[in-house]
């Protein structure tokens, strides 16, 4: 019986995922086409040096002369077939550009999310364990301070801190930023050799650190709250009464019950982290999706802009779906 309800639950979620993705695409389409002003004015650069034949090609491709529903149909069809048009500025296919940048953004977001989860849960759990103590007060106020901080500002400050020697301290570490790795030394052809991977790691330190510090507060505060919530439940009292140590109570009873809301939260947090990645990429000139988006906006490169929203939305939808599946595994109550 459990198998059937499990399957129907997953099926329902999958239908939801598909509906949401279609919805994102329609919303994105409407955003571009229903904004005040003629869409063709926004779709094409106002630069007269812009190749006019490319313009007709685009009109043909997106069927800009047809009715709105036809355009929508074409848009969705093109999106699914990977035929995303050509960038105005680089004249490369948008699909290639976005997929290339996506790898690097995923690397950045992935590493920093892992870092955030480890840091946030550690800090949150220890604060809950020693709640009211000096560690709790210190950690809570420091994470709150970083919570209120604009990520781009943190990035600027960290960048300045690690590209100069503050107070003339010569031993102060210097961290590189700007680009994926040291292309001057290793060439722009990406090969997966050990020195290049090390260089990639080195260039990743500042962006991931910024992103992790900026988003750790959300996780650690909720972790602390949900653990303290769990600690006030009756079964904790029972566990204490039967003589378990504080650590055992936390590890065996409080943590498993505090986990499900955490997983849901981390999945929801992906949307926030993507927003943070945009800022970090711009400050550190790390050419991922965010950097590409901002460039597209400053150059009015609408073919790229058209798909950035979809990519961001789909990433969040998938993250939420995975979170739900994980919840299913962790929380037996959902299956029943």
């Amino acid at each position, binding site marked *: 019986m459990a198998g059937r309800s499990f399957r129907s639950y997953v099926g329902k979620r999958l239908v*939801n995922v598909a*509906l*949401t993705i279609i*919805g*994102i695409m329609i*919303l994105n389409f409407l*955003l*571009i086409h229903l*904004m*005040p*002003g003629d869409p063709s*004015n*926004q779709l094409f650069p*106002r*630069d*007269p*040096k812009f190749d006019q034949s490319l313009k007709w090609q685009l009109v043909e491709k997106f069927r800009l002369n047809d009715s709105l529903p036809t355009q929508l149909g074409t848009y969705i069809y093109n999106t699914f077939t990977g035929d995303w048009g050509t960038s105005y500025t680089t004249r490369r296919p948008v699909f290639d550009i976005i997929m290339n940048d996506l790898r690097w953004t995923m690397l950045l977001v992935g590493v920093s999310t892992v870092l955030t989860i480890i840091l946030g849960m550690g800090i949150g759990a220890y604060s809950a364990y020693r709640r009211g103590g000096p560690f709790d007060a210190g950690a809570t106020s420091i994470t*709150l*301070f970083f*919570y*209120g*901080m*604009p*990520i*781009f*500002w943190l990035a*600027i*400050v960290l960048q*300045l801190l690690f590209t100069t020697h503050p107070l003339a301290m010569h031993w102060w570490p210097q961290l590189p930023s700007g680009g994926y790795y040291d292309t001057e030394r290793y060439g722009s052809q990406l090969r997966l050799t050990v020195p290049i991977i090390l260089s990639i790691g080195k260039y990743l330190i500042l962006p991931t650190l910024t992103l992790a510090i900026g988003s750790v507060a959300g996780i650690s505060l909720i972790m602390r*709250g949900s653990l*303290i*919530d769990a600690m*006030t439940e009756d079964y904790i009292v029972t566990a204490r009464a039967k003589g378990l140590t504080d650590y055992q109570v936390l590890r065996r009873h409080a943590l498993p019950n505090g986990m499900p809301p955490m997983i849901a939260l981390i999945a929801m947090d992906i*949307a*926030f982290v*993507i*927003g943070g990645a*945009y*800022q970090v990429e*711009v400050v550190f000139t790390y050419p991922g999706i965010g950097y590409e*988006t*901002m460039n597209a*906006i*400053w150059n009015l490169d609408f073919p790229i*802009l058209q798909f*950035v*929203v979809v990519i*961001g*939305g789909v990433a*969040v*939808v998938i993250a*939420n779906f995975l979170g739900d599946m994980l919840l299913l595994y962790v929380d037996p109550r959902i299956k029943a």
Partner: protein
Amino acid sequence: MESLSRPASCCERPSGRAATKRLVRTRCDLEMRALSVLVAIVIVSSGALALASLVSDSSSGVGVPSALQSRLAVAFAVSQTNESVANAGPDQNITVGSLATLNGSASVPSQGATIVNYTWKLSQTGSLGVTLYGEHVTFVARKAGLYVANLTILDSNNHTSWDITLLVARERPETFLQHYWLVMLIGGLVAAYPAFEVLKAVRRVSEGLPLIAPTTREKFKLSVKKLREINRKLLSNRMGLVGSILLTAFLLMAIFGPLLAPYDVTKFNLIHKFEKPSNAHWMGTDQDGVDIFSQLLEGARTSIIIGIFSALIASLLGTVVGLYAGYVGGWKDEVVMRLNDVVLSIPWLVLMIVVAALLGTIDLLGIILIIGFTGWSMTARMVRAQVLSIREKEFVERARAIGASDMTIVRRHVFPNTFPLVFANTILTVAIAILSEATLSYLRLRPADAVTWGKMLSYASESSAFQIGLWSWIVIPGLLIVLLVLAFTMVGYALDEILNPKLRKR
């Protein structure tokens, strides 16, 4: 009959056809009202959005009433050579904030050549310029000072020629309405309530009733008592106390700061740009020679205005959607929540960036609307969850049993019970809205007609403030944003704890 075969939602009771009919009627009534409120909001807001974009979209200039335009003809006589002509004419005067039209004209010598394009580069010293194309272009000067207009003409023989003229942008004396629209809006809303009360009192007196009904007096006493209680709890909460002190300081800064500002932030002084901190300029001057300390004081007000108003819009929209979806239930709820999921799935910042980019140039009102209209979905989801649980409560059932309409139930029972949640959440949203504004500004999507801390940070980092010795230009606005966000967050969390003790016990 169709209405009877609807999937029975939990609030339908098996009490005969008459009751069901009434229920259906009142529900339709509720839906109609909720819908009309939504439609009204959408119409008003899209009107405002369209207006904002029309007014601010400098490159199209369509639809701006001609009274707003100060037409200006820069007649360029550019001849068909590769050299520039001597000064085309005297410097032109334009007005800050109003549309100016630049007319380029060029004579093409015979040979059958035609002019292919006109490229205008308008720039102000120290800032990035705009490039416009066309024989006649319109643009809006954002700040007072000197603009350099460079017109390049390309003909079909691939000859180019160019000329430069100077545009002097002067401040237009602002009308009362323009300067105080926000104050008047708030004032109007605030004044509407006492006016309404006075009207009610007049009616009561004319009907021979006492001026203040005893129930009103009791209610007033109760609410005062409740407010005192909340205030006491807020100040006895550590987070609430720190947050309240910070918030009071910032509110004072927002009210009195701009009055204390030593310099006018709209006046340029290009001779004194990038000056180091001194007695005259405590924090130095920016790329336009404007005093940074004055901008800091001015920025407090704009940042708080943007935060509060966009959070209000987001909360209002979210509450209406959440109340509707949660109370009506059924497939309509499903549809609304699917739509909500869609909006929620797109990272908020990404959505805001794209909307701002599509609108082109944005102003203060524009940025408020952008943040407000993209940020309602979280509130909607939360309110809906709350409504779902309130709908099942006994007092709602009881109200329905004595024949209250759905509208009354929502207004008198459901909404008041979600209000504490919405209120605390709105204050938390203010913090997020302030952060969003700073981020948008940093990404060069900044309000053109206002000074905000985010905008200061963006100019500071574009001018690499650290390298030219103006470190406080980056550090202090950033720190102030952090503290302001913290103040709203702390007060929001503390209020949440006080007002919704069952929801989040910590």
